[in-house]
């Protein structure tokens, strides 16, 4: 079953040539017709189709369009051209702890985080205990999260994002935090979810992470798909290319 389908997707950012932050200035410029924009195509003509249960790695240099691609899939950015279709619930694990509020307790943050992902209070309450248990935060769940260590916050955020029942997980290097035990736990959970037919897309600069976790890799360069194929072939090609790039510099 196909779960993600991108057809000729282009995403164009409009960047004002000069950053105009004030309304006064904007109005004056507008009257003088001096508001100029540059178009930046962060994603160009991308075709991508993903089957349920695939684990896809996305690689490329900084600014290649990886994060933008995720934002297009997760509906944050409507495509400028082309068509995006997604079947199922998307859970973006882009920045762990995004939306956490330090003054709120762990429990309150779980409720909030889960609502941000579009789940109802009832659904979240049922899952609360399991989330807390997985994150191993039973003793701290009623303390404000500003007292948490980075690792604790990351565990809680990962637990919320993956315990709710997403069909598609978009992971943006979020797993690079936490100790080895946490990383292994994340890995195990991803395996479990994959067993249930969930789909993953993972952005990472670490080819090792990609090789360990993915069975297909998409290589982006300047917003275009350069290669799309099995992990070994694409990561090797990318590695070779990167070495060549490094030599040229």
């Amino acid at each position, binding site marked *: *079953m*196909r*779960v993600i*389908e991108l*057809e000729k997707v282009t995403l164009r*950012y*409009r960047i004002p040539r000069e950053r105009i*932050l*004030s*309304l*006064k200035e*904007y109005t004056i410029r507008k009257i003088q017709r001096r508001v100029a924009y540059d178009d930046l195509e962060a994603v160009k003509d991308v075709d991508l*189709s993903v089957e349920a249960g695939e684990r896809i790695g996305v690689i490329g240099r900084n600014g290649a369009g990886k994060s933008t691609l995720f*934002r297009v899939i*997760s*509906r*944050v*950015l*409507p*495509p400028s051209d*082309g*068509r*995006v*279709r*997604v*079947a*199922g*619930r*998307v859970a*973006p694990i*882009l*920045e762990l702890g*995004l*939306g956490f*509020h330090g*003054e*709120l307790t762990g429990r*309150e943050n779980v*409720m*909030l985080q889960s*609502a*941000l*992902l*579009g*789940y*109802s*209070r009832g659904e979240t309450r049922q899952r609360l205990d399991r989330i807390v248990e997985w994150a191993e935060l039973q003793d701290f769940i009623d303390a*404000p999260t500003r007292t948490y260590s980075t690792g604790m916050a990351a565990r809680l955020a990962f637990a919320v994002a993956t315990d709710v029942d997403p069909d598609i997980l978009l992971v943006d290097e979020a797993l690079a935090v936490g100790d080895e035990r946490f990383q292994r736990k994340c890995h195990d959970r991803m395996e479990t979810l994959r067993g249930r037919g969930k789909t993953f897309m993972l952005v990472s600069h670490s080819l090792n992470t990609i090789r360990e976790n993915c069975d297909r890799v998409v290589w982006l360069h300047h917003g275009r798909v350069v290669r799309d194929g099995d992990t070994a072939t694409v990561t090797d090609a990318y590695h070779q290319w990167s070495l060549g790039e490094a030599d040229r510099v």
Partner: protein
Amino acid sequence: MSTETLVPVYDSARRRPRWIEEAADLWKYRGLVHELVIRDIKVRYKRSVLGMVWTMLAPLLNMVALTLVFSQLFKQAVRNYPVYFMAGSIFWAYFSQTTNTAASQSQASNDLAKRMYVPRSVFVASAIGGGLVNLGLSLLPLLLILIVTGFPLYPSWAFLPVSIFIVTLFTAGVALILFTLTSRFADVREMYGVLIQTWFFLTPIVYEPSIVPFRYRVILSLNPMYYLIQIFRKPIYDGLVPSLGLVLLSLSMSVAVLVTGWIYFCHRTRTMAYWS
């Protein structure tokens, strides 16, 4: 390319009008509105000893101070000045706090909405929710003043929910426009601060409209707040249900502002993600 098996939950090509889509999404994310209101209340009171009491104490202290000042000025004109002033000032506080919250939260809200999909109208809705909670709480000190000054609690209070509903429509419209503008321009918030200060004095809150000289009445009649404050204050202070004409005028004006705000907001929300 066969796509028979793909039953999309999200399809960028399915373009319902933005204003319908945003409304449908807001309804879908109503649980988030609830959570955001709770978050704002909890965060506000977490580290404060007085907690909720502060919400009630603040207008009370404010009222005492202003009453001392203005009751000297308007001694002859207004009977039971404390009740008159307080009824108007909690109405004003509801409007100004809610719109200010929407304006001040737009930056953080957009940062969040740039990273994960959330209909942005939830942030405006939560500002309104928070404002309503505060409005409810500030009715208590008003009741206290009624008791202390021996002012009657009129049966016309029963009309207040209708007044609050109409005022909320208007507030929501203004909040949507402000949220959109502050998302784009950094200086709008300050400009609004100046505007609302002026607006406060152009609205009969500390004074009675009858003291306004005749040639300036036109300014009053052009101020939407002049009508809205009446439908709010009349049931409390005059013991009267506002006339049908006044209610219909306020209602249609508020609906117009809300519709304008909603359409402008929805029109802009598609491009907000590209703004930085």
